[in-house]
């Protein structure tokens, strides 16, 4: 039996390896560092690790090799399992930046009397003596940092996977830590645990679909490599049923992760129940990673079956936008409303997805979706960061009625939040507008006219519920005692400031980032 040692390109994979390494070191820190030092060590470790990974990403990005006709740059590494190309690196950079500002939210201890937003002791029963003690002794789960780093690593691997098996493993690496993180809220523990249970059950369910899809596609093509699948799809060898069934089931798994209707039902419940810092992180980063993977899979592997799956994406896109926009209208919880808003955003992203795919004149789908993801990520983290600030005696005041009159209470916070909402609504001079413009344009260029018309229509509806909150904050009087706006430490302040700055800059001068997205070029095959 001949055997050749596999070749691993460690340098090219360094961003991934750094994040994985930091996660492992984080576990060791939990094991050996004394309790009082853990918070400091863990948060600094996570930050340093992410910065290092970001630096490595930039280094990798400047060093991508040009392939073929020059449309795509990068290389396939780790024996064909991972593709480090322009889009991968772009997504990595975005993910790392957003994770950086999310870590700051994780580390915030200023809002709740010196305690973090995470449960003191997850094993202690809610409402018992043990829980109170854990709280008074200032216990906290610093495990959240390594968990988050594992999730980040999975998110980075997901869109870079060049192999269905790697993709499945990445999907689980990113999901499992998130399930746990969702259940670790310090306040409203029952809701938090329920969110974890729901997310886990449905996530496992959907990954079952994904896996069966993988099995079918493997059955169709005889390989799990995207390139080999593409070849088989192109030649239409094997059974059509296997391929179509496989595409459909894989799509289910993917669309579940991006929160597209009718696979969105977990989104509002989980976003509401999870600790807000975790919600911010996963709302932004999971969607980015999942869209990256969705794009790679459908463009690279199933590209030549495009005629088969485009109508399906149309239906899902329309349904998603409609569900997100309409359901958001009657929400009374701010986090639920933002969750539905993120569902609607997934719909708009899917509109971009069916456009002109890659390359060509004008804005390609890939470019527009990547750009939209950046704008979406920053405004989402920013908005959720603001949500952590509005509090009353029971923790965060998430009921919309508690936000009434915030404009008078704290003009600055209300103003910033209003700005994020306007951005999500897609008002010009905010990044939301440029993002929507990009995806709609690419869809229009791809000839998806009816879809663009519907999208514009539904974005009008969507604008309405954002407006509702603004009206509530400015034009209504507070009910009962007004909620206090907690003064955050520098950590949350920095997060909000970065989110705000990105939203403004990407609205006024989207050029550089659009260029970067264009530079990312096509996927390598």
């Amino acid at each position, binding site marked *: 039996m001949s055997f050749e040692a596999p070749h691993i390109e460690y340098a090219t994979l360094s961003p991934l390896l750094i994040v994985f390494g930091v996660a492992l070191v984080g576990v060791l820190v939990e094991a050996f560092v004394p309790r009082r030092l853990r918070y400091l060590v863990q948060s600094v470790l996570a930050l340093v690790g992410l910065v290092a990974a970001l630096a490595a990403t930039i280094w990798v990005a400047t060093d991508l090799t040009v392939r073929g006709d020059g449309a795509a740059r990068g290389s396939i590494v780790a024996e064909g399992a991972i593709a480090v190309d322009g889009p991968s690196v772009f997504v990595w950079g975005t993910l790392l930046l957003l994770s950086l500002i999310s870590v700051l939210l994780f580390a915030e201890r200023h809002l709740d009397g010196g305690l973090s937003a995470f449960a003191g002791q*997850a*094993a202690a*029963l*809610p409402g018992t003596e043990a829980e109170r003690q854990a709280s008074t002794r200032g216990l906290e789960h610093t495990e959240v940092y390594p968990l988050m780093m594992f999730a980040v690593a999975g998110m980075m691997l997901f869109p870079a996977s060049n192999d269905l*098996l790697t993709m*499945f*493993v990445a999907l*689980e690496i990113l999901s*499992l830590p998130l*399930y*746990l993180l969702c*259940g670790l809220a310090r306040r409203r*523990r*029952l*809701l938090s*645990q*329920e*969110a*974890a*249970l*729901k997310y*886990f*059950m449905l996530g*496992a*369910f959907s990954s*079952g679909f994904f*896996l*069966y899809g*993988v*099995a*079918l596609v*493997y*059955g169709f093509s*005889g*390989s*799990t490599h995207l390139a080999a699948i593409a070849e088989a799809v192109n030649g239409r060898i094997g059974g059509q049923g296997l391929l179509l069934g496989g595409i459909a089931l894989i799509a289910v798994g993917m669309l579940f992760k991006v929160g597209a209707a009718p696979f969105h039902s977990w989104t*509002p*419940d989980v976003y*509401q*129940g999870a600790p807000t810092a975790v919600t911010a992180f996963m709302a932004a980063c999971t969607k980015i990673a999942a869209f990256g993977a969705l794009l790679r899979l459908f463009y690279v592997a199933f590209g030549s079956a495009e005629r088969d799956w485009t109508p399906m994406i149309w239906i899902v896109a329309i349904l998603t936008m409609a569900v997100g926009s309409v359901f958001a209208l009657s929400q009374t919880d701010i986090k639920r409303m933002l969750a539905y808003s993120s569902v609607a955003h997934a719909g708009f992203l899917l509109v971009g997805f069916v456009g002109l795919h890659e390359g060509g004149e004008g804005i390609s789908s890939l470019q527009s979706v990547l750009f939209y993801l950046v704008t979406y990520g920053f405004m989402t983290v920013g908005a959720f960061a603001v949500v952590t600030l509005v509090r009353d005696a029971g923790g965060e005041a998430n009921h919309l009625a508690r936000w009434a009159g915030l404009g008078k209470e704290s003009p600055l916070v209300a103003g910033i939040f209003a700005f994020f909402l306007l951005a999500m609504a897609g008002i010009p001079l905010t990044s939301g507008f440029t993002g929507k413009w990009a995806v709609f344009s690419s869809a229009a260029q791809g000839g998806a006219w009816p879809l663009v018309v519907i999208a514009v229509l539904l974005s009008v509806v969507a604008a309405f519920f954002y407006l509702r909150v603004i009206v509530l904050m400015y034009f209504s009087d507070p009910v009962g005692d007004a909620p206090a706006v907690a003064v955050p430490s520098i950590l949350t302040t920095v997060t909000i400031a970065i989110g705000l700055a990105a939203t403004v800059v990407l609205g006024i001068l989207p050029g550089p980032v659009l260029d970067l997205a264009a530079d990312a070029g096509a996927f390598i095959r």
Partner: protein
Amino acid sequence: MEAEPFIVLSAILFTIGGVGVLTRRNAIVVFMCVELMLNACNLALVTFARVHGNLDGQVAAFFVMVVAAAEVVVGLAIIMTIFRTRRSASVDDASLLKY
């Protein structure tokens, strides 16, 4: 070797698992149904590996087992915390978050 019966069997197992998730109340049983779905996938993968005469599917089955085990660890932990708080493992009882 005829592959079809195995694929049909795996599809049947997958469906049983899926229907189990939809109909059973106990979180543990629901979870077992999910595992059944994953194992149905394994059966399909191994069968196809045999059909195509390469090892990819078998390797994939190994990884799926690992992932399933990791899922068990995480899942049971979550179910247990819920059970300790609520004294019930029914998935229908956990429905505070809605509308």
